[in-house]
């Protein structure tokens, strides 16, 4: 499992792996927003938590089809499935690799982009914390979506249709935590619920992902 994780990380970082593309996409979306809604400081500060959360969600979505597609095409996924490693572990390792290459950089970059959107000072720590708690759930759910559509030729669009509705609870709690922090309310409840979603997806979704992978490899 460690070897698989290390392999996926190496593949992602090396040339053609698309590491950093998600980050660039995140940056561009955030930069585009002021062009759309106008440069007023108050407006931007008000919508900043939501924009940052939605943008990181889309950036995470963008790199999902890389999780299984290439391995499926060249047959290494079928090979992995016959290895002594349970398919559930493969799913978990793949999701972890996706998180390290997408979720973690997004989380670390978000405060800098919050600065661009005039995010109020009390929001930064919460933004970092909520993304840190929430992005693993995005990777887990995304891995499930990627496994569902792995056998399809044009699965990318379908995958977004399948995955985005599943992102709704994570998005609600994540953005709500930051908003509450900015408004001076206690962000504990949404943060705990966010952590609960992440913990539950890590515990349960690998089984669903593995089931779906086995069906697709049949």
């Amino acid at each position, binding site marked *: 499992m460690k070897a698989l994780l290390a392999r996926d990380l190496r593949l992602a970082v090396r040339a053609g792996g698309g590491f950093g593309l998600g980050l660039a996409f995140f940056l561009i979306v955030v930069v585009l927003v002021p062009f759309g809604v106008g440069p007023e400081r108050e407006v931007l500060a008000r919508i900043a938590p939501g924009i940052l959360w939605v943008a990181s969600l889309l950036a995470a979505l963008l790199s999902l089809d890389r999780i299984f597609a290439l391995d499926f095409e060249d047959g290494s996924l079928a090979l992995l499935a016959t290895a002594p490693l349970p398919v559930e572990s493969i799913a978990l390792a793949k999701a972890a690799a996706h998180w390290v290459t997408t979720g973690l950089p997004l989380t670390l970059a978000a405060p800098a982009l919050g600065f661009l959107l005039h995010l109020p000072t009390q929001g930064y720590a919460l933004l970092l914390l909520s993304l840190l708690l929430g992005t693993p759930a995005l990777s887990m759910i995304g891995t499930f979506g990627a496994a569902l559509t792995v056998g399809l030729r044009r699965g990318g669009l379908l995958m977004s249709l399948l995955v985005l509705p599943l992102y*709704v609870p994570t998005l609600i709690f994540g953005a709500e935590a930051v908003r509450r922090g900015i408004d001076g309310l206690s962000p504990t409840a949404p943060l705990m619920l966010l952590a609960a979603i992440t913990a539950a997806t890590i515990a349960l979704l690998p089984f669903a992902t593995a089931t779906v992978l086995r069906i697709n490899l049949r």
Partner: protein
Amino acid sequence: MSLWELANPKRFMGWTAPVLPWAFGGAALCLCIGLIWGFFFTPDDFRQGSTVKIIYLHVPAALMAINTWFMMLLASLIWLVRRHHVSALAAKAAAPVGIVMTLMALFTGAIWGQPMWGTYWAWDPRLTSFLILFLFYLGYVALWAAIDDSDTAADLTSVLCIVGSVFAILSRYAVNFWNQGLHQGASLSLDAEENVSDVFWQPLVICIAGFVLLFIALVLLRTRTEIRVRRTKALLARAARA
């Protein structure tokens, strides 16, 4: 006879053929009685005027929108556990019916919301969760349509239905957390001391019965069509081999 006999496609066709006209007839009868009674023979509400009468479409449609998903969940579980093809096909057949019910609930709600709340749409928890439910239905139907192999499609959509159910329920409570709504509480529930007053309640129950029968009739009809399509394909494949 056990319920599982219906899992045999031939038996299913045999059993449902005589049921179908009765279900359609019952649905037409209930809807005629309920809607005519509701629209013309109940008093106007003292605050809402005649707009209250949209309840006879709105409540049954909303009820069936959710129950259709439950039926699909149940059928998906049966498919995954017992591998009865009729069950998978019934889930497939029910999804478009669920989409129509969801849209109907949303549209009648919008028409009702405009005079009452002054807006067609608000990001109210109930309204929002119905919109999310609609997206879940869309994804489910799209996945069915995207996969060529029917057994793979049935397997994958079943897993999606189960995972989606968990997330749909989660979203339902998450949006509650996110925004307080305009929508009133449940109109009908078994444990409430006071429901909608009797004059509205009786035609409403008849309308709900009509919608349930209509749902059963449509799903049976669509499942029969799916079975026939499958049989035609099998026959064509056999002819091509010969």
